[in-house]
């Protein structure tokens, strides 16, 4: 049989295809993004899209489910916070076609602002949760997820972590089975979430959870591996493989795939067969707490801890005190934090912000979060998607109420984030007369997650040309009478734009517009800058732009030719005119 090396995300996409899924909607977010980057491969059989945000994606997928087809939505862990509203009510209503919500958590926060454990969403929303441990399970279990969703009339939370989503392992494919939708019939009792209906739905949902707990005791998703009676381990997701490596060979395992509701009778039975019971799970003691509450004695978080990712060596060390010998070579590596790329259009904007000590800048989630790093240090806060505008609003109101003057507040977010949840903030600032200048850093793409299209980019996920929404038209329609569009790479123009906005007598907003250099379909004007060492006085002003290509060696500036793309931002700050862009 053909084996394919697939990431968990690619395998989820394949599994959804094989399950006969027809409508798919998502907003990109590491580590979930590649599920939907993979789906267009199957576009002859299914519809897939990037939605403006996770709530929209969830609602679109749920609408498709109501209409009777199998549907999928996917997001990173914090995306579920945005999508929580429809998820909780979809649980009460139930589904038409199978409805699966992929949540990709990020233990150790490789690419995230927090380490929330989304398993609690399943418990809180009262929906079943399935956790695959490798790519083959990512494919197989999602097919089971659709069957469970339909059999129990409930949405399914499909939870992965970074290591499940991004690790690659061998997968054998199956065939697609078409899922035929029953003819659509209006069912207001089921789908209108009015109080009277919800009142009736809640006890039905409680009964569903009881049925699911019973089902979990015989489901093939949960499997017992008896290898001995001394030690038993209850585990799920990637922690299963870590534990397999870390525990002795005669350890028995109860490996759970359906992790909410927990199959407590199966767990009790397993516990009774072993002398010592461990629960091995990453992040919180989600399973352990419930197992203990059921009166079953077990050991877990007191040894493994609830912070960050685990791995086999950490489990060996924490559970058995068995630390692998390591070598300290005695030389310490300097940290290599991520930085805005050479030629990044955001650099000119943040450099301009960094020149004004009276500016307060609320930032947002994206490549531009890096504007807060040294040497630019141009951000006061970063909270969540869309928070750039609205956190700025709160800060401005606080300054007003406490009589703080002499500060100018900016709210900053990117083009994709503007469509995600920035538009409501832009409305808030106008409606409630905020003393805030909203800035949209428009690089024509969703950058940090790896270049996904958005409502402003002119293309959709299927690769077709799409309506390109104009941010300036939206802002003008909201009442920003002075919308300033500027090329952020032109520092003089950027400074003028900021001053124009600060001094504007009508509500002003700024759009910095220059496409990300990594967009492949655009022809970029790439060049090289170089330093005239006779003119360079070693003042290091050029280092202030925080470009990885600008280096100071032997008290003179040097441009790394391999990295430089000729954006000239460093040249514009040089007081001696020592840096120039080479003629072609």
């Amino acid at each position, binding site marked *: 049989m053909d084996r394919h090396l697939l990431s968990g995300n690619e395998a989820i996409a394949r599994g959804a295809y094989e399950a006969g899924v027809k409508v798919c909607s998502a907003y990109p977010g590491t*580590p979930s993004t590649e599920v939907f980057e993979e789906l267009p491969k199957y576009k002859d059989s299914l519809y897939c899209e990037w939605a403006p945000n996770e709530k929209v994606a969830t609602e679109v997928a749920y609408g498709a489910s109501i209409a009777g087809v199998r549907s999928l939505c996917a997001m990173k862990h914090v995306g579920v916070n945005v999508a929580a509203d429809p998820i909780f009510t979809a649980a009460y209503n139930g589904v038409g076609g199978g409805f699966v919500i992929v949540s990709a958590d990020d233990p150790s926060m490789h690419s995230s602002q927090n380490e929330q454990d989304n398993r609690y969403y399943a418990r809180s929303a009262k929906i079943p949760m399935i956790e695959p441990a490798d790519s083959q399970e990512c494919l197989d279990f999602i097919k089971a997820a659709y069957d469970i969703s339909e059999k129990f009339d409930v949405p399914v939370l499909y939870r992965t972590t970074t290591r499940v989503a991004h690790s690659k392992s061998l997968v054998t494919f199956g065939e697609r089975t078409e899922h035929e939708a029953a003819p659509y019939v209006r069912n207001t009792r089921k789908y209108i979430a009015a109080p009277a209906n919800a009142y009736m739905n809640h006890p039905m949902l409680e009964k569903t959870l009881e049925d699911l707990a019973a089902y979990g005791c015989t489901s093939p998703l949960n499997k017992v591996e008896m290898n001995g009676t001394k030690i038993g381990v209850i585990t799920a997701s990637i922690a299963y493989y870590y534990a397999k490596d870390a525990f002795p060979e005669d350890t028995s395992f109860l490996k759970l795939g359906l992790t909410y509701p927990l199959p407590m009778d199966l767990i009790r039975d397993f516990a009774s067969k072993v002398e010592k019971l461990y629960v091995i799970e990453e992040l919180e003691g989600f399973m352990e707490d419930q197992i203990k509450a059921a009166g079953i004695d077990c050991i877990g978080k007191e040894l493994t801890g609830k912070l960050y990712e685990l791995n086999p060596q950490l489990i060996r060390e924490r559970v058995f005190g068995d630390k*692998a010998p*390591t070598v300290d070579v005695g030389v310490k590596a300097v940290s290599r934090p*991520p930085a*805005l790329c050479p030629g990044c259009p955001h650099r000119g904007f943040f450099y301009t912000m960094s020149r004004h000590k009276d500016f307060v800048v609320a930032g947002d989630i994206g490549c531009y979060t890096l504007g807060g790093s040294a040497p630019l240090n141009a951000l006061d806060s970063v909270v969540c998607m869309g928070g750039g505008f609205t956190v700025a609003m709160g800060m401005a109101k606080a300054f007003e109420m406490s009589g703080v003057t002499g500060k100018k507040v900016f709210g900053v977010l990117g083009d994709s984030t503007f469509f995600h949840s920035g538009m409501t903030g832009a409305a808030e600032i106008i409606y409630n007369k905020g003393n805030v200048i909203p800035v949209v850093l428009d690089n024509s793409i969703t950058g*940090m997650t790896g270049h996904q299209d958005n409502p402003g980019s002119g293309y959709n996920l299927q690769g077709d040309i799409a309506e390109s929404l104009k941010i300036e038209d939206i802002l003008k329609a909201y009442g920003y009478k002075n919308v300033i569009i500027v090329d952020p790479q032109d520092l003089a123009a950027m400074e003028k734009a900021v001053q124009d906005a600060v001094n504007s007598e009508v509500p002003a907003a700024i759009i910095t517009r220059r496409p990300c250099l990594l967009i492949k379909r655009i022809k970029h004007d790439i060049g090289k800058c170089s330093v005239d060492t006779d003119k360079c006085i070693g003042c290091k002003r050029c280092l202030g732009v925080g470009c990885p290509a*600008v280096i100071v060696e032997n008290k003179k500036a040097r441009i790394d030719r391999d990295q430089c793309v000729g954006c000239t931002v460093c040249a514009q700050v040089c007081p001696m005119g020592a840096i120039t862009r080479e003629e072609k």
Partner: protein
Amino acid sequence: MTKSKSALLVGVGGQGAILTAKVLVNGLMKAGYDVKMSEVHGMSQRGGSVSTQVHWGEKVNSPVIGKGAADIIVAFEKMEAVRYADYLKPDGVVVINDYEMASSSIAAGLAQYPEGCLEAMESHFRCHVLKAEEIAHSLGSAKCMNIVLFGSMVKALHMEDVVDWETVIAETVPEKFRELNLKAYRAGYDAVER
């Protein structure tokens, strides 16, 4: 305990470690091994330190390893070798590209590039050091540096009998770079002693 082997490929975003891992994995798959590979995407890609783990054997459990567990480290940059040294088993093997890339803080003059990276590694581990960047340049393009390093890795780990690596490389890299990468593989293989 499993008898699987694990390799850690470390470098700086954009150096081509992921393609190297892909060649390795394609060959191991062809040879019939169970293979798992782990990499992290997103924020860490932007000029940051990157690592890709490849784990293979008859049956592999965890795609990731912790400290003191790697059989080999292939370092695309010498400071990265030092950064990940504690992931190596004390009897592990290292292939190091004698190549230096400043971090942003070093470029800005706020930190010093550490002295003695190679010497420190050589005094503790069995090391194979080569100037892969220069070799790649001499072959026509710095872009094939990753396959130069791969050639050295195959020799250092005695992996030439696993599979016909030249066929695997030819099948993995884009056609127009095939000849270049085959030359790079051979040059890397010849560049280190065993």
